[in-house]
């Protein structure tokens, strides 16, 4: 019996998974289920679906989905699209490559708050750029570079790009450089080599990269408050969840918003993975026939 289980990869070493399973159950599963149940016990609204009905009935809440998607999707798209040509040029070995990678990846270490602070110092109403413009007499009043949609988008790009770049670089590294050389000997120029060989092979990886930067961007909170316009055009979903929980003390409503947030993210992930599955026409598994 033990041998038969072992043949299926089941043996005592599997017990080592227990702490991790327990951890996931305590830290993720329990709060998730607790929140899910809580969201169906409204404090202010009627019926099990009261919170959800209210969310979708009130444009102030409902619109946060579109606002957040409006930030996260362009940011993730930009990060993925921008990282491809840069990573593509950086495949080979060259002098100063590590330094360049270090510089490109550095914003990861800064954190959103520091980046927001930097952006305000540079582009805020009393930031360097505005003061220079005012002193030079080029403008009468400070220009609003940040504290709006663009300020938040910019921070999402600054924080998200390093992730996208690193992932793209490693996906590119997984593509055999001999393939492009083979394509060259068959008459394919540099553009054709990229679009017909490297890009299709990279696409599944780009889908994953998009998903990761998207999820990262969708949960935007600090920068939406610090360099955005949290009452208006950057009223993202996490802000209304925060308000419900800590300003209105409606934990039930906050849970419902968190559930909606998760559902939207999941929907985007499923759509992207679906498209990915259709785009990659090769067999998914290896296996010799």
């Amino acid at each position, binding site marked *: 019996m033990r041998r038969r289980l072992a043949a299926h990869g089941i043996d005592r070493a599997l017990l080592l998974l227990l702490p991790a399973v327990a951890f996931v159950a305590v830290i993720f599963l329990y709060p998730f289920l607790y929140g899910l149940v809580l969201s169906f016990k409204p404090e202010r609204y009627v019926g099990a679906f009261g919170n959800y009905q209210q969310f979708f009935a009130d444009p102030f809440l409902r619109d946060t989905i579109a606002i957040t998607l409006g930030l996260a999707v362009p940011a993730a798209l930009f990060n993925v699209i921008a990282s491809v040509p840069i990573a593509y040029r950086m495949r080979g070995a060259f002098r100063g490559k590590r330094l360049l990678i270090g510089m490109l990846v550095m914003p990861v270490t800064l954190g959103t708050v520091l980046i927001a602070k930097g952006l305000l110092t540079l582009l805020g109403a009393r930031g360097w750029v505005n003061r220079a413009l005012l002193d030079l007499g080029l403008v009468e009043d400070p220009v609003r570079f940040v504290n709006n949609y663009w300020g938040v988008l910019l921070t999402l790009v600054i924080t998200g790009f390093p992730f996208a770049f690193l992932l793209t670089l490693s996906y590119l590294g997984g593509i*055999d450089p*001999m*393939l492009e*050389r*083979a*394509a*060259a*000997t*068959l*008459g*394919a*120029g540099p553009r*054709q080599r990229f679009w*017909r*060989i490297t890009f*299709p*092979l990279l696409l599944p990886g780009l889908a994953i990269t998009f998903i990761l930067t998207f999820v990262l961007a969708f949960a935007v909170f600090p920068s939406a408050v610090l360099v955005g316009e949290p009452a208006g055009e950057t009223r993202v979903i996490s802000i209304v969840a925060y308000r419900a929980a800590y300003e209105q003390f409606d934990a039930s409503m906050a849970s419902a918003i968190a559930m909606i947030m998760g559902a939207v993210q999941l929907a985007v992930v499923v759509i992207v993975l679906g498209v990915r599955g259709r785009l*990659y*026409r*090769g*067999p998914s598994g*290896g*296996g*010799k*026939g």
Partner: protein
Amino acid sequence: MTATPRLRELVLDGLSRSFGKQIALAALDLRIEGGEFIALLGPSGCGKSTALNCIAGLIAPTGGTIFLDGRSLDGTPSEKRGFGVVFQSYALFQHMTVRANIAFGLRMRRLPKERVAARVDQALALVQLEGLADRYPSQLSGGQQQRVAIARAIVIEPPLVLMDEPLSNLDAKLRLEMRTEIRRLHRELGLTTIYVTHDQEEAFSLADRLVVLREGVAQQIGAPDEIYYRPANPYVADFVGFRNAVAMTLERRDGYVGLARGRGLRASGRVSGVGSSGPVTLAIRPDDLVVGGPGENAFEITVDAVEFRGRSFVLEGLTDTGQRLRGTSAAAVPIGDAVTLRAPSDRVLLFTGAG
């Protein structure tokens, strides 16, 4: 069925390539005629792949020029050369079917669809893969992938086919099969082929002419039998199977025939090189050094290793002066026995100069 070659001649004129201070290929001169099958032979790091990549246009030579029918290929990128290349790793496009892989080169040439389909079908038939056109490379065996790689390279009807150790990832039996196959395609399609390998047997059986390379320098260029029987120097001799090498001194020379002594041995053989005295390197194949065989050269060894080879046994042992020799015996010899190995002097080579 034979076709006429699509190339008159390819000339390598002092082709060289260095990587920093490292010289990978030093001034290779070679004239290849249309229809020839040339093998570049040597151990890894001898510069054979570098030469091939230079010809393919995948790396730029640091010196010399390649002339294709009198036209210099300097600055012509790989995609404009139109050579068919078969890579060691096959380099098949994993996201394309077998058919799309083979069609790739034709599509790059913007051939009409029906022509592409017809020629791909023809190529599939040539490499006997008709039934697998819609599979993906990962669904094929190593040998089948190899056939796809060959079909992809020859379907574009290249003036020159370059093969970089194409059989080294296959098992022994398949390697033999594919060898015959490659030779057949070369002949039937009138190809001109440059074939890189470290396997001397493969090179001997396939090529019309061989180039033996060592550390970027061509050691000998010649027909297989020439290199097999008349290696130019001790290095080539060792590489093509003259596994016995003994440092001796030449005592007498009479035309091609010489007499040498050293390490307690006395040998007469065919002298290669200039000079009638001084250091020589004796070289004999184990196959020519036979227990109870013919020949005026006789060496006595105490056997310390015996290897069964099917038809015969390969013996190894030491002479009483401690010189290791390898010979052949028709019958098994017990370890520890003393035997006398004999070789005719026309099978013994004496290379003058310090080897």
